[in-house]
């Protein structure tokens, strides 16, 4: 059985509001860098492109902080968000 590995991308806080969606799903056929993934999302709409471009972004892969050069595997859960402000 061939399983399609869906990569889920979550957005939080001001990024979530600017994207106007909390998450989206992508089907990756091979590993890509976080930077590649951002380009793929930005390519989907002008709003996405603007939302991603206009703020500093942090990224987590499977709930671990990562960076622009980290590799995303098909099936990973990616989270994109602005710098944190808890505490």
């Amino acid at each position: 059985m061939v399983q399609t590995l869906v990569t889920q991308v979550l957005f939080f806080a001001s990024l979530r509001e600017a994207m106007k969606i909390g998450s989206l799903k992508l089907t990756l056929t091979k590993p890509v860098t976080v930077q590649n993934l951002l380009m793929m999302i930005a390519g989907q709409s002008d709003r996405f492109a603007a939302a991603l471009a206009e703020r500093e972004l942090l990224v987590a892969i499977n709930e671990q902080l990562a960076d622009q050069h980290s590799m995303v595997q098909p099936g990973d859960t990616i989270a994109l968000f602005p710098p944190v402000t808890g505490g």
Partner: protein
Amino acid sequence: MMTWINCRIQVEDFSLAAEYQTLVRQDCGAVVLFSGLVRDQFRPDSVSSNSIDPNNIDQLQALELEHYPGMTERSISTIAEQAARRFDLRAVSIIHRVGVLPVGEQIVLVGIAAPHRRDAFAACEMLMDYLKNEVPLWKKAHFRQSAEWVEAKAADKNALQRWEQPK
């Protein structure tokens, strides 16, 4: 030496007194508690931001706390374990609230019990610095007439340097 660690993300308020009781133990001479609260804040009215007219100030009503369920809890546990490895601690309690918190509400509690006070103070401060920089939590400030996401502060980021250790 084992350290008892208790980390929670919750909507409900917490009782500082109850948490203190869970921290106290006979081999600890020091308990340090930090409570973070939603503080009254004022800013120039968004429609007249250059005015210094005191009637044209906008007052904070509430902070709204958003988090990344799952990662937030994991991330808080990780920093608690880092503190426990670095200092001689016997108990660590971290509670962070999420949701809409009006002015005066408690946001966060960090409590440390340790044999000696220096470890307790240092661990409590380190955990607050890490909470401000490494845990996926975001604050939105709701003023009377507008709302905006709180910007991360350079001072909070700089505070992390205190805890960098030589490799």
